[in-house]
């Protein structure tokens, strides 16, 4: 019996099906918990899913490469999803057009703040150069951040993780922070979430409202652009 189980396990853990299914189950479990607890910020579905999957990998002895073999099908959808952000953006076209300059300035302010404060704080705390270069693009959406990290000499896979942790931090505490400082305008809230916390912030911003979500998606795209252009210049100031 136990031999049979080991055999089945050996077979399943070698197919992409297991990593893919585990990811979907973990995320939906996280979503259920989040809704069940009245959207308690610490039970952010992404955070819960990641913690659950890491525990699953530890217990089962499966390595990350084997897991990603399956999970890559979900990871791949980041591409089309990024393209799809054009749709909510287009629906907000009039609002965007009316305050185009304010949006541009705000996002550039956000981009510079993100890079300077991240690298500055890491430097003050004595982080290694790899850590500093990997953390610099942490507010930019994963695919852009990984590309930037590769160009500047960071570790792209570490950057991906830091980007996601940043997103979770913002999704968990962003709304509270904006409330505390009296930022009530949905457009400003959306821009802040998207510029600081990319797609995870955007997912959270869509819960605040459609306007916040669309502006967050816009800020995410613009910040990717701004950071890709500005970061090499800013890093020059540090190194």
């Amino acid at each position, binding site marked *: 019996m136990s031999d049979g189980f080991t055999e089945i396990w050996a077979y399943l853990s070698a197919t992409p099906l297991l990593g893919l299914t585990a990811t979907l189950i973990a995320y939906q479990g996280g979503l259920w918990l989040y809704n069940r607890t009245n959207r308690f910020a610490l039970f952010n579905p992404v955070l819960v899913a*990641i913690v659950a999957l890491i525990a699953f990998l530890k217990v089962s002895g499966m390595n990350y490469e084997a897991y990603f073999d399956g999970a890559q099908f979900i990871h791949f*959808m980041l591409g089309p999803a990024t393209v799809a952000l*054009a749709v909510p953006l287009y629906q907000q076209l009039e609002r965007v057009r009316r305050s185009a300059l*304010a949006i541009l300035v705000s996002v550039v302010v956000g981009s510079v703040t993100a890079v300077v404060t991240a690298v500055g704080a890491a430097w003050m705390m004595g982080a290694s150069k790899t850590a500093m270069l990997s953390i610099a693009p942490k507010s930019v959406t994963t695919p852009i951040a990984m*590309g*930037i990290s590769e160009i500047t000499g960071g570790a792209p896979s570490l950057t991906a*993780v*830091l980007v996601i942790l940043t997103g979770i931090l913002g999704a968990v505490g962003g709304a509270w922070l904006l409330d505390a400082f009296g930022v009530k305008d949905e457009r400003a809230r959306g821009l802040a979430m998207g510029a600081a916390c990319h797609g995870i912030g955007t997912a959270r911003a869509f819960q605040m409202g459609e306007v916040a979500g669309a502006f967050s998606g816009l800020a995410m795209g613009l910040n990717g652009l701004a950071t890709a252009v500005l970061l090499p210049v800013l890093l020059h100031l540090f190194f």
Partner: protein
Amino acid sequence: MAIAKRSVFEDSPMSLGFITVLLVFQLLGEAVSRGFGLPLPGPVVGMALLFLGLMVRGGLPDGLRDTAGGILKHLALLFVPAGVGVVMHVHLLEREWPAIATALVASTAATILATGLAMAALDRAGKRGGAGDV
């Protein structure tokens, strides 16, 4: 339990045709990004191209709206696989977690506030100016 009367083959909001449209724009984005050596990933260029395409066309097809909505509804899920990759960096994180945690928390809070307050202030300034176009 009510029995579903609608056949599974009837129209569902997600459409194969518009999923293809999204992939075509991603592909175009990759081609433009590589072709012109842009520092931007293909999907972001694809988003810009689709946005321009919609402006030129002057209207949003219902099917595209539903398909994009279907994908974006679970945007957060798509970040999970890369996030689990944290297990690959346990050593560096163990060594440097105080610096990294401080930098992440401080910088994320600073960025949210800087962007949000900048937009709120510029918007107010624009309204006072009476132009409404800032």
